[in-house]
């Protein structure tokens, strides 16, 4: 089985999907050659729902997100698949058309709130900018809108603070400003790439609440990328688990968490320190993910899998249904139930 076969786009799906990613492949140029960083990733979100993208660090989550919004590094190149919003494949749009979608349809919040704001512009200007770009509002009108948004995300004294510069805000506030900017135009889809990793729990809770409220208010689809399983458990409707550039399991959050169908998901859930006893080693998944340039031809998880058999080395498992609205990429997913 070749890796490219997964990249062929399939038929367009239902129109009520806010975002539909299919067979996304991203190639990455490195000093030692081109590697496939994202291999046939597909998922979809409906409006008002939250999809969590889980996975080992370096498995290609950010890269998937960036290809969706068209902000990939020049080192990376989308080589296949489709990203559909409002029934159009954004990968086939001209830059100008794509710009029209950026903001009102697709928008993204990055993890790094420290550097994601322009250090030399007052934050009000930056938050109001989407209105100036897409709605053609005057500077003053955009400023008013920015103040409204800042109020919405809970920045005290927004009128004065709008004139301040990013470095004058705390991390949590900056993250909220980024969110304000992202939701300014009521996008169909909001992608949040680890929006709270750098923040402490009280602020994280605050941000998560904010995201939920905004989502409810505006009926957005949210794609949440995070490492924090607890956050996923609390917030997500659906989960996509990625491993080494591929999707290994999909399903509703509740089902996946209660009964994982892929050994990797299982391992992940086991290694949460929450219930662990101090002094006892955490049940970690041994080993590390394969190098991108040397992804095995069989199952990508074979090197670390407790269930590994000869078949896993020979044949890459495809994503197959394991229940209503669930699928996993494992030859022996049934065996997990028995444990």
């Amino acid at each position: 089985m070749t890796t490219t076969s997964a990249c062929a786009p399939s038929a367009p799906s239902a129109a009520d999907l806010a975002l539909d990613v299919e067979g996304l492949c991203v190639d990455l140029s490195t000093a030692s050659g081109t590697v496939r960083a994202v291999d046939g990733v597909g998922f979809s979100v409906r409006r008002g729902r939250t999809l969590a993208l889980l996975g080992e660090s370096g498995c290609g989550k950010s890269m998937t997100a960036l290809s969706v919004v068209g902000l990939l590094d020049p080192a990376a190149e989308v080589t296949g698949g489709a990203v559909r919003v409002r029934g159009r494949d954004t990968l086939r749009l001209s830059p100008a058309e794509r710009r029209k979608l950026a903001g009102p349809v697709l928008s993204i919040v990055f993890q790094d709130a420290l550097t994601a704001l322009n250090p030399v512009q007052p934050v009000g200007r930056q938050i109001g900018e989407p209105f100036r770009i897409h709605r053609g509002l005057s500077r003053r009108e955009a400023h008013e809108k920015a103040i409204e948004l800042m109020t919405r995300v809970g920045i005290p004294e927004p009128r004065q603070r709008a004139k301040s510069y990013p470095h004058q805000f705390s991390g949590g506030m900056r993250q909220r400003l980024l969110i304000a900017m992202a939701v300014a135009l009521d996008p169909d889809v909001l992608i949040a790439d680890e929006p709270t990793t750098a923040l402490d729990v009280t602020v994280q809770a605050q941000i998560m609440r904010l995201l939920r409220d905004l989502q409810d208010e505006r009926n957005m689809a949210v794609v949440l990328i995070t490492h924090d399983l607890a956050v996923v458990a609390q917030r997500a409707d659906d989960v996509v688990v990625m491993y080494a550039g591929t999707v290994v399991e999909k399903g509703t959050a509740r089902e996946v968490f209660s009964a994982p169908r892929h050994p990797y998901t299982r391992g992940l859930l086991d290694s949460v320190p929450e219930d662990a006893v101090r002094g006892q080693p955490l049940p970690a998944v041994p080993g590390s993910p394969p190098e991108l340039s040397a992804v095995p031809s069989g199952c990508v998880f074979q090197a670390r899998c407790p269930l590994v058999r000869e078949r896993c080395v020979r044949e890459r498992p495809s994503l197959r249904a394991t229940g209503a609205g669930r699928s996993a990429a494992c030859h022996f997913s049934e065996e997990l139930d028995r444990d």
Partner: protein
Amino acid sequence: MATFLRKRILSSAIPLVCVVLGVFFLARMTGNPVDLYLPLSATPEQRAEFSAAQGFDLSVPAQLWNYLVDAAHLDFGTSLRTGQSATEMVLDAFPVTLQLAGVTMLLAITGAVLIGSLAAYRPNSPVDRIASLLSMTAASIPDFWFAIMGVLVFGVSLNLLPTSGIFGGPEVWVLPIATLLIRPFGVLVQVVRGSMVSALSAPYVKIARSKGATPCRVIFGHALRNAVTPVLTVAGDLTVGLVNGAVIVETIFGWPGIGKLMIDSILQRDFAVLQAAVLMTAVTIFALNILVDVCHALTDPRVREAAPA
């Protein structure tokens, strides 16, 4: 800001004094100017008389003392060459240089920002390659070449521009400015391109793009102000070069500026004028440095805030 300025000015005072003293002593190491000013056939008595009249017979420290005392009264001496007051000569020449340098840098910075940004936006594109090649060439062309070619081609052959001179409409500015421009322009394009490339890969640029900002907005609205810091620094240094040494242009095109005045007074050992001219340019250069710092503060709120500390 005010305290920042005050501190900055105070810290410039010592180097300023160093420059003045340095020039004073260096100049006196170049020998006695008597021979230059007396005819070849002048007698030893005449030479001694001249030396005494100009105070060159005193010891160097004594000369320095006299100079400082006079300078404290804003008297910078008279020119050996013309007999005019040195201050007057310098003040006559300085505006010319300042105008030349100002206009040149204005054009150079504007042009370099436009072209450098364009090149940085798509590294390695044909636009980038052409812009880089042209700017590198511009930075390495001998300027007197360029000037004389300009005179011959645009002045004489095409008859579009006057060959030289300072009187007349805007057309007299074209060749001198173009000559002065090429090197700063070439250098600045490179600098702008470099810092623009890194500014354009900053996260906030990604954010701006995710908002659907047009390339123009991304470059000029977001990246430029962040990229401008090294550009300002280099531009400051280049302006220093212009203030100190537009000699070639001033010589070829007959612009009576400070560069020509300075080199003439060096070659003629006209110490009073040299000292006054160096003092003037040094003050200007320090003012320029302060201006660059102020510009940094204006473009970057973080610098502004750090300033009073």
